[in-house]
């Protein structure tokens, strides 16, 4: 059994002898495109034959339309000459261009004569005054849409843009014996409406209507939403995770002094991270904070806070004034702790923000990256709590198993590296955490209390979720990708 689309059935039923597409459209109530489309399907099933008739189609060109209105140039000239005039007068009347065309045709058709600059009509010319020329008849016929033979239009050819010829392919569709047999076997098509219209609702005619069913598997046009960038969706989620756990968001500058970015975090001034090749420095310098904090930080570096021997070198305030693009959001934590008052403890703070490293660009390296920062100050927290928060956070990101290894950062002790078990079965390193050293906390807060701190990178998690291999894709902004990328569905 041949399967037939609704449209195909209606065409088969409507065919009584060879019919044109327009005729069929009228007979079936389908639009001409649907008829063309369905007929091709019927042909491929051997149910109809399609023969093509090519026909030249004539229409008026720009000059053709003009002459139809104003008359051919030679007609205008004939009228102007009448009993006789001079060539120069005629030129004045018609304009130079039209005068030339008119004269050429008057002469060729022997409608007028020129003697010593005087123009008079010939006998033929006088006759034509009251009779239509073949060109005029052709122009009018084309304008009226009457079919005229190409031969008759020949008189207009070669005269500028009088007529245009386009080819019209008319398809004539006729039913094949196989088609007839199928119809005889009985097919029925629902007759009815495609679209429920306001009129049908107003006059109630929908009650008598039958609505043609849709092919529910048919391909439909794509539409795209306006939306957040997929990476930002992920970041919003991470913010939500910390907010739900009662963390307050930290916000702060991207440009910072080395003092806040490094010195306050007990990173010695000779540390490789402070080399030009790793960090973005600006050409200008910034100001160090007021109050005793600079002296306290200096003392921590040179001599250590209580119980510490410090780094044992001579601390340079000028180096601390160098401006950098923050290398980590931990700078926000340092500034936040310096601002905390005793009565605000315990405090839980977080941020999700852009950080910078001076690095060449390739599929796995970028000079900007996103870091998830969090600190818990006070409340008697300990190392187990640090691991607890980290485990909780990564499980919210879909990594049920996390393991912790020793690590090193100048500003934390204990220091932790976090690996999570990826669903594909391997351990993936996702970032660092620790407890701030007394040499960090004491100068900033004034006393040595435990502070949990973490700052894992986040870009790899986003890449993993969206199956992105090249980290640059996070900033590529391919419009089609932005339109079609699946939503961050964790929540």
């Amino acid at each position, binding site marked *: 059994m041949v399967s037939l689309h609704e449209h195909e059935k209606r065409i088969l039923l409507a065919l009584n002898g060879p019919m044109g597409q327009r005729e069929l459209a009228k007979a079936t109530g389908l639009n001409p495109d649907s008829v063309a489309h369905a007929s091709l399907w019927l042909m491929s099933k051997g149910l109809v034959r399609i023969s093509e008739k090519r026909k030249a189609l004539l229409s008026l060109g720009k000059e053709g339309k003009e002459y139809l209105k104003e008359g051919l140039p030679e007609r205008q000239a004939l009228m102007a000459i009448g009993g006789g005039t001079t060539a120069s007068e005629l030129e004045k009347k018609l304009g130079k261009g039209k005068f030339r065309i008119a004269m050429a045709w008057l002469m060729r058709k022997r409608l007028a004569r020129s003697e010593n600059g005087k123009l008079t009509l010939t006998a033929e010319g006088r006759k034509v005054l009251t009779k239509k020329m073949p060109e005029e008849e052709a122009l009018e016929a084309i304008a009226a849409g009457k079919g005229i033979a190409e031969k008759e239009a020949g008189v207009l050819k070669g005269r500028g843009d009088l007529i245009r010829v386009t080819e019209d392919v008319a398809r004539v569709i006729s039913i094949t014996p196989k088609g007839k047999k199928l119809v005889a076997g009985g097919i029925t098509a629902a007759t009815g409406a495609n679209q429920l219209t306001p009129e049908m609702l107003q006059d109630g005619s929908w009650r008598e209507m039958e609505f043609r069913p849709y092919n529910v598997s048919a391909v439909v046009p794509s539409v795209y939403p306006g939306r957040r960038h997929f990476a930002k969706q992920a970041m919003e989620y991470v913010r939500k995770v910390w907010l739900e756990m009662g963390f307050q*968001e930290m916000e702060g500058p991207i440009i910072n002094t080395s003092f806040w970015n490094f010195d306050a975090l007990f990173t010695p001034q000779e540390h490789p991270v402070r080399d030009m090749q790793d960090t973005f420095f600006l050409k200008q310098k910034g100001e160090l904070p007021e109050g005793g904090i600079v002296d306290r930080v200096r003392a921590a570096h040179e001599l250590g806070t209580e119980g510490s021997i410090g780094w*044992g070198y001579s601390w340079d305030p000028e180096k601390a004034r160098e401006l950098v693009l923050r290398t980590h959001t931990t700078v926000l934590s340092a500034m936040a702790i310096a601002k905390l008052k005793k009565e605000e403890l315990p405090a839980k703070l977080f941020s999700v923000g852009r950080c*910078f490293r001076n690095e060449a660009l390739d599929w796995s390296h970028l000079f900007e990256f996103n870091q998830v920062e969090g600190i818990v100050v006070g409340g008697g927290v300990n190392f187990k709590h640090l691991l607890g928060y980290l485990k909780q956070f990564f499980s919210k990101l879909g990594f049920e198993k996390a393991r912790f290894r020793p690590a090193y950062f100048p500003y934390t002790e204990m220091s932790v590296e976090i690996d999570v078990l990826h669903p594909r079965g391997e351990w993936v390193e996702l970032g660092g955490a620790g407890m701030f050293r007394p040499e960090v906390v004491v100068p900033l807060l004034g006393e040595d209390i435990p502070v949990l701190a973490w700052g894992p990178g986040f870009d790899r998690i986003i890449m993993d979720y969206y199956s992105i291999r090249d980290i640059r894709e996070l900033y590529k902004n391919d419009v089609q990708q932005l339109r079609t990328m699946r939503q961050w569905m964790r929540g």
Partner: protein
Amino acid sequence: MPTIEVSKKGLMRKLGKPISDEKLADRIAMMGAVVERMDGDSWVIEAFPNRPDLLSEWGLARALRGFLGVETGLPEYKVHNSSYEAHIDESVRGIREHVAAAVVKGLKMDSEAVASIMQMQEKLHTTHSRNRKLASIGVYDLGKVQFPLDYTTVRGDYRFVPLGYRREMSIAEILREHPKGKEYAHLLAGTDLYPIWLDAAGQVLSLPPIINSAETAVTPETKGVFIDVTGLNARIVEQALNIAVAQLADMGGGIYNVHFGEFTTPSMDPRKMGLDISYCNRLLGLSLTWEQAKGYLGKMRIGTSDGMALVPAYRTDILHPIDLVEDIAIAYGYENFKPEIPQIATIGGEGRRAIMGRKAAEVLAGLGFLECNTYHLTSSETPKRMGQNEKLIAAANPVNVNYNALRSSLLPGLLQILSENRHYDYPQRLFDIGVVFGAGAREELHLAAASCQARADFTEAKSYLEALLRSMGYKPSFKAVSGMPFLDGRAAAVYVKKKKVGVMGEASPKVLENFGLGLPVAAFELGLEKLIS
């Protein structure tokens, strides 16, 4: 991070305990180093920068013997008193004034041992000594050196045969032509006096921190060595010597001191540090007894005596008792801590910028705009493409020339994105929210939106802008302005409560041309923080 290549067999031999590859790699990781590569017998190990003592097969083995329980507690390094003397000339002050030295005798050398000493020296130079800046180490064949020695200075025309050459060269020549001279000349810039080690016979030992002399080089025939460290930081100098001497002693040598008149080096005595066990327990959430803590410290090769910790002379990372606490935690095993969430009730809250950005983004997404994610860094040429001659804040040392300055607005980024997406169907409507940078390193949160399509015009931009601001509860007014990047007569400044908060208009065809755009763009950019304050 610094790495070393070790022979797994060599390491196993030094551990004196059979252990599987997998287990060994795991133990190394849990002790605080990283096995980066396992390639047959060759293993590449990454040590943290605060543990230069792990950057040799000997040092790694020493730590692992403790961690695996083969040999725990403080390693003893006895320093024999000797009659070796050296003199420091006053003239080195302000050049490389800190000095320490030692003699190690009774070494059984072979080419492997020579290579091991060279590797240790190299690793100490690049990591702990910051590429020889803070300290530099020289190792010499004791048999080729006559005591007493002189650490003094000479002028640039002083000549000797440097290692790697067969002819005498002046110091000036060495700094100009010798590969090591060229590499490290900057460390001696600004002086016309050069530090030098001379022996009693006037033989040159070395020109620190550049190069040794050819005459005194260590060979497989060497039985003992003289080793010196000079530098800018006393502690770094002393630590470098201690790490080197500890390894040479592990290799079987006996340590002998060197007398500098007022002081004597090396001192391999452990440093005493008090440790309050309740402090340790409070930080770790454990309830260890002092006896247990002693056991864990011992696994980290830290000794104890009378309630004090004894820190080996080669450990550079123990600044505060907290560092002992971490060693206890590592010995206890990070894997043995039970993660817990503390019961601390606090109220969470979003940042002001974040709220503003999120609200605006919600409205724009609802209006059919796609959000973009962009870099803060851009090219210093960007304003030129916008037809403006603004100067952006420049990075002092950018690796990427196309990203060498900080953006001052978001619109150029959107135009760039539009120019890269010309092959997709229109309309394309984009927005971006992010920080921009103004004069004086001022930062501000901005929002920009652009519509690119055949009929994009002022009216469209204004409709969207009004929809956005209306949704957020603001009523804008507009004043005609002229100037790039907009088309004259089709640009406006946007005001809210009489304050200018942004600009909008049709992008100038000149700008569209600069970005290679074939369709008109209507856009606006707002300072979000200007709306709040």
